[in-house]
């Protein structure tokens, strides 16, 4: 699975017309190193774990489970969780259940627009193996083929309690420094891109949405 990083620093952006090539960056994403001092990295991870800003993008039916999180009953604010309407400022992407091919395209865009370190939680069974949509003509079966996933909260659907539990598990994982999805994505970029392009047939966007 570990492909060697393509040495060529630019992407082809073959999905774009010649004019559009001018308008989108063709730079290849780069992986980032942890801070050289361990204590700083740990501290940074602690801060990241305690300030989880979730991208407000309900990608599937599970999005409905996200809403109660902010209510008095679950109050995810306690854990430093907050919603954020723009991917630039978010650090957590919660995939709300099944992802159709059409939505996958938008998920990829949004994911790539997020700034690292970034974390992905998949809700429900569908992102794992298709769930009840295992034989659908437009729902992908294995989400981690396209985007690196840090955590699965399985079930159909998992309840908000499960979501809270998964957030706490994510925090633990971040603090342990095990959430390197963004780097994995970059390191295996060509493999991910090939998978994405295999299912998304009208690839009319740049290869990496900066």
């Amino acid at each position, binding site marked *: 699975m570990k492909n060697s990083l393509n040495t060529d620093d630019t992407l082809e952006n073959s999905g774009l017309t010649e004019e559009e090539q001018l308008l989108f960056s063709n730079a290849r994403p780069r992986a980032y190193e942890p801070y050289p001092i361990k204590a700083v990295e740990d501290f940074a991870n602690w801060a990241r774990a305690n300030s989880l800003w979730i991208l407000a993008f309900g990608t599937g039916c599970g999005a409905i489970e996200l809403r109660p999180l902010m209510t008095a009953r679950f109050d995810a604010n306690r854990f430093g969780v907050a919603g954020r309407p723009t991917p630039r400022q978010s650090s957590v992407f919660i995939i709300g259940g099944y992802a159709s*091919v059409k939505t996958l395209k938008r998920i990829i865009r949004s994911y790539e627009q997020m700034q690292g370190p970034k974390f992905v939680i998949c809700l429900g069974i569908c992102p794992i*193996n298709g769930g009840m949509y295992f034989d*659908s003509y437009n*729902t992908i079966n294995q989400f981690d083929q396209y985007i690196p996933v840090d955590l699965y909260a399985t079930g159909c659907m998992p309840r908000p309690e499960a979501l809270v539990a998964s957030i706490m598990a994510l925090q633990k994982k971040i603090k342990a420094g095990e959430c390197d999805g963004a780097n994995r994505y970059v390191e295996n970029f060509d493999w991910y891109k090939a998978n994405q392009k295999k299912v998304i047939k009208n690839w009319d966007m740049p290869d990496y949405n900066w």
Partner: protein
Amino acid sequence: MNDLMERLQRDFGVDDITVRKPALTTFRVKKDSAETLIRELRDREGYTHLNFMTCIDYIEDGIFTLVYMLHNYDKKLSLGVHVDISRENEDMVSIHTLWAQAWTYQRELREMYGINFPGSPRLEEDFCLEGWDDIPPMRREFDTKEFSEQRFGHREGRHSEEPRDHMKVELYPNRGGDEK
């Protein structure tokens, strides 16, 4: 209602008239006279609203049945107009001239069933599916499971159970799934 049906029978030769509910009647009409009949219903009989139009694939009979659902606001009556078209020659007259919004339905039918509505606007554009490259997915000869496995892959470890059998085991584990 009966008057109308009699008249339609007389003028257009509709058949298969079925009263499904007090307010809903369906009937079948020939492909050639369908558009004229719908126009007549809209302009003369007050069926001014197009609820929806959809399609049923009768692969065994080699036909698509198009369903136009019309509604009369004054009488609060609905009419379902069924039109059979051949699966081989899947052309149908466009009714976007009658209801502008019909082109959306027609785009969808084009994408999902491959039915052609010559003259309908933006027919060739993607509607729901972006970049679809196979036969239209709602046609029944399309094997969706095979397509899914081939395109989206298959994760090992998945197995399906008959819900009834599964629940028996779950509910009566001691009796080996026997409900008695």
